[in-house]
């Protein structure tokens, strides 16, 4: 048993629902009790889809458990097929349905339906949402494509001369982080390269479309969490290569363009020009609506961005977005990546390898309290995470931008806001920079801390972040009980608590006062005043460090001099 207060991923049948909902002409019959129908609101409320997800729940009750549940399943499946006339039927069970072992696959086959039936075995007590999505997509592709393929030994015929190269785009699904807009952006890149898009799946695809997947020359995999299993099978069985680069960020988009150009046998140069480092000079007669050009490279080199240099950033999310964010943060913003992690255990190896590039050990966990403890310990200046890290960061008074699922209604913005491709890089530049204080603003706050109009916790994160200044400070203190860094000290100066201990601290109610740390120690009033000049979110640590220093040096009264001695001591 695992104690969970909040989870990054839903159960695997929600992953299956994300595939069914993305597609057209598919219906999912789910053997599940009343209550599991809550999943509909993920799509109708969070994503604001205007139609109900294509799922029929059996909603069996206790009185059915005696033996009517199998009959209820058959009736639900028959009714669903009659009412919705799908081209293919997914059948499976939620966690409770799995326990009653009715075998939805067998029951559905026994109905003798005239459409393909795809049984899903999703191991609800072991697996999670993304795995469920990947498995469902794979089962759909395999079931529908296998019958139309030639025997495995048949080599793939070369593309006929004069036929434009083509690809499939695999991965965009319902309830995906910016999938809607990424798809548009990636299509733009492929269009500009002269590569035809054969099928996009699962989003918008019908089962009939899936049978056309083998017609393309190769597959573009946008979200490995969802599409890698199916793509690997297509490579193996249909001889279609698949892309491995995720086009998030300028560098990665450049490599993506080169990769697809190579797979398609086309020239990448025209598209690469748009990713160049300097803005094109306006020449007389240039079209006013020239194709989108990457602004990130120039904005990042522009001198106003120097204040971004070395900002310490903590990154957590699904594997695809976390790895991409780390690369962008490091190479395209000039940040220092101080932490990198993921909740996607299936991709732990990739994230560990990425973290190693920044000299870090990846944080692989699905316990948000562990992530919270890590953020508190590292004291980053920017957090790039999920909605949960946004919440954590807000509490700690650290700026944050959201880079990954799990989805929140705010992650479906009305405006066009891709993460991938050229415009994606532009969007990310704005998204990450706006929460930060601009250079001069930051200097002024530091120079004139006494200004009565400056709040206790100067921030433009909004009133919520700064209103309970004292409380936030207390929280900051209690969240990082022994991390020993001041604003300028390197993080490795800090002996840190084991995560469990830190989490235990954070689980106490936030209103609990910080444990009294000074037994025999006292602070001179001047030193207390000086301490107030230290930014509030690191003040707690500064206090603790100073007290530790004082104890180690046998001091009873802490003076201003001691405060600075401690600062020098810990920033070695």
């Amino acid at each position, binding site marked *: 048993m695992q104690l969970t*207060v909040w989870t990054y991923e839903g159960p695997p049948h929600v992953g299956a629902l994300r595939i069914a909902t993305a597609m057209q002409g598919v219906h999912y019959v789910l053997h599940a009790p009343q209550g*599991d*129908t*809550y999943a509909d609101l993920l799509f109708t409320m969070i994503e604001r889809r205007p139609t109900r997800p294509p799922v029929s729940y059996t909603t*069996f009750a206790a009185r059915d458990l005696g033996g009517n549940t199998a009959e209820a399943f058959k009736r639900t499946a028959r*009714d669903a097929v009659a009412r919705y006339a799908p081209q293919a039927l997914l059948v499976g069970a939620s966690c*409770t349905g799995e*326990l009653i072992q009715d075998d939805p696959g067998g029951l559905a086959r026994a109905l003798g339906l005239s459409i393909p039936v795809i049984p899903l075995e999703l191991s609800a007590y072991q697996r999670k949402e993304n795995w469920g999505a990947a498995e469902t997509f794979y089962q759909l592709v395999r079931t529908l494509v296998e019958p139309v393929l030639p025997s495995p030994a048949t080599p793939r015929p070369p593309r006929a001369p004069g036929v434009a190269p083509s690809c499939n785009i695999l991965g965009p699904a319902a309830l995906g982080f910016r999938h809607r807009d990424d798809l548009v952006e990636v299509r733009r890149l492929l269009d500009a390269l002269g590569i035809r898009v054969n099928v996009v799946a699962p989003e918008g695809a019908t089962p009939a479309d899936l049978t056309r997947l083998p017609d393309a020359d190769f597959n573009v995999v946008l979200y490995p969490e969802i599409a890698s299993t199916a793509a690997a099978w297509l490579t193996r069985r249909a001889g279609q290569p698949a892309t491995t680069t995720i086009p998030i960020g300028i560098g990665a988009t450049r490599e993506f363009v080169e990769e697809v150009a190579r797979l398609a046998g086309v020239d990448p140069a025209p598209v690469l020009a748009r990713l160049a480092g300097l803005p094109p000079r306006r020449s007389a007669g240039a079209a006013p609506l020239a194709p989108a050009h990457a602004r990130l490279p120039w904005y990042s080199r522009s001198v106003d961005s120097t204040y971004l240099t070395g900002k310490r950033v903590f990154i957590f999310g699904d594997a695809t977005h976390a790895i991409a964010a780390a690369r962008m943060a490091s190479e395209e913003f000039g940040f220092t990546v101080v932490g990198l992690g993921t909740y996607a255990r299936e991709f732990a190896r990739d994230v560990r390898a990425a973290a190693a590039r920044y000299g870090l050990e990846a944080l692989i966990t699905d316990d948000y309290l562990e992530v919270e403890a890590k953020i508190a310990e590292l004291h980053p200046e920017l957090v790039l995470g999920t909605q*949960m890290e946004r919440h954590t960061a807000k509490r700690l008074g650290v700026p944050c931008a959201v880079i990954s699922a799990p989805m929140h209604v705010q992650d479906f913005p009305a405006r066009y806001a891709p993460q991938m491709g050229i415009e994606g890089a532009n969007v990310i530049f704005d998204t990450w920079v706006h929460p930060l204080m601009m250079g001069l603003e930051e200097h002024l706050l530091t120079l004139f801390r006494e200004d009565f109009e400056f709040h206790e916790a100067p921030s433009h994160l909004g009133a919520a972040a700064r209103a309970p200044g004292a409380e936030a400070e207390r929280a900051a203190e209690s969240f990082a009980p022994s991390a020993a860094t001041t604003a300028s000290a390197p993080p490795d100066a800090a002996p840190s608590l084991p995560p469990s201990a830190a989490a235990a601290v954070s689980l106490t109610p936030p209103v609990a006062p910080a444990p009294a740390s000074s037994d025999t120690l006292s602070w001179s009033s001047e030193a207390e005043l000086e301490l107030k000049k230290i930014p509030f979110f690191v003040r707690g640590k500064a206090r603790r460090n100073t007290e530790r220093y004082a104890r180690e040096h046998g001091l009873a009264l802490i003076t201003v001099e001691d405060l600075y001695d401690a600062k020098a001591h810990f920033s070695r």
Partner: protein
Amino acid sequence: MSDLPGVIGVNLSTSDTASAPPPAPATPSRCVEIHHERGQHQVFCGLTGIIWLHRKIQDAFFLVVGSRTCAHLMQSAAGVMIFAEPRFGTAIIEDRDLAGLADAHRELDRVVTRLLERRPDIRMLFLVGSCPSEVIKLDLARAAERLSATFSPRVRVVDYTGSGLETSFTQGEDACLAALVPSLPATTDTTPSLLVVGTLADVVEDQFRRQFAALGIARVDFFPPRRSTELPAVGPATRFLLAQPFLRDTAQALERRGATHLPAPFPLGAEGTRGWLQAAADAFAVSPATFTAATAAAQDRAERALAHYRPQLAGKRVFLFPDSQLEPVLARFLARELGMTLVEVGTPFLHRAHLAADLALLEALPTTTRLTEGQDVDAQLDRCRAARPDLVVCGLGLANPLEAEGLTTKWSIELVFSPIHGFDQAGDLAELFARPLLRRQRLAL
């Protein structure tokens, strides 16, 4: 999965209970047609009640013993990220628990011990059963007994089920409160006291407290209390009013403790609130003059607030999907106090005895009310589309799709999460129904 025919009239002269099938009416009722429906239910399970219960009882923690789905339901339905420290969590059953590799009870002890170590402020722990824990027959009653012995006297451990196999949505609160009733201290005091049963918003509770004081009813307790250490005493002199229509088991448990139920309409709207307070006044022999003096001003305020919304709502046709069991009461309010026309009133479960007064008021309407108990969501959606009502009251899964079809909707869950009881909330309650219509008018889209 068809609508079972069988129009059963409500016989209000009998005191039928939900456990026994209603006796055939002597004269078929004209004005309330009750239909029973089975099929796909589009209703939350009882776990969802934790979302308000964990805020109501400030020193209680709700530990769901369930699956990842349970945890996901809770956070999706509640948007719990807004709470820094929710006082609920899920002990997720894993493969090794099912395969017998881990002893589920030992695992549960470990999880609870860790939890209580981390939360020294917790005085009451609810072990909440779920669909998976019911199916694998995990004995939470035994676990609660064992853990209570371990953590007593600091923490009391109580179990109940919020499983969707047994409970729908608000029935979770019923199960929770019913499980608490045996823990209520006993009293042999012969002076009658009043107990108000069912979660109310704190502000409403305070209003009612003042109102009962004005009526001269001195001894009033609310259940559930705001702190688990303040459980009200119960005994033969206890008279209880239900504040919510979904508390069948709790009421029975209280009756077993000797308490007496005061039948009344539910306190939604001016009429309902008046009838509800009147029931208390009658039981405590409050004089008509005192009653009028104590309630006239508030009732007048309620009437004035409702008058403001009546022109916007009168004559509008409303269709209520089943959700919280509040639907028949809301229907009575909408039809009688705001002049709306009831197309269909769905409810997951109809407790005829507790709703007798409200049903009688529906009976008195000149038009027939179609009440549907249970649900077959596809068939119900067909009826709703065919009827094209002016306003649809429904759950979160259905609202946007119906809006996209051009219908105007009101999320029913908001009715459970807003202070709507009492005279001073009657206008607010009307406003919740007027707002979607008003919004439609405002938007030039």
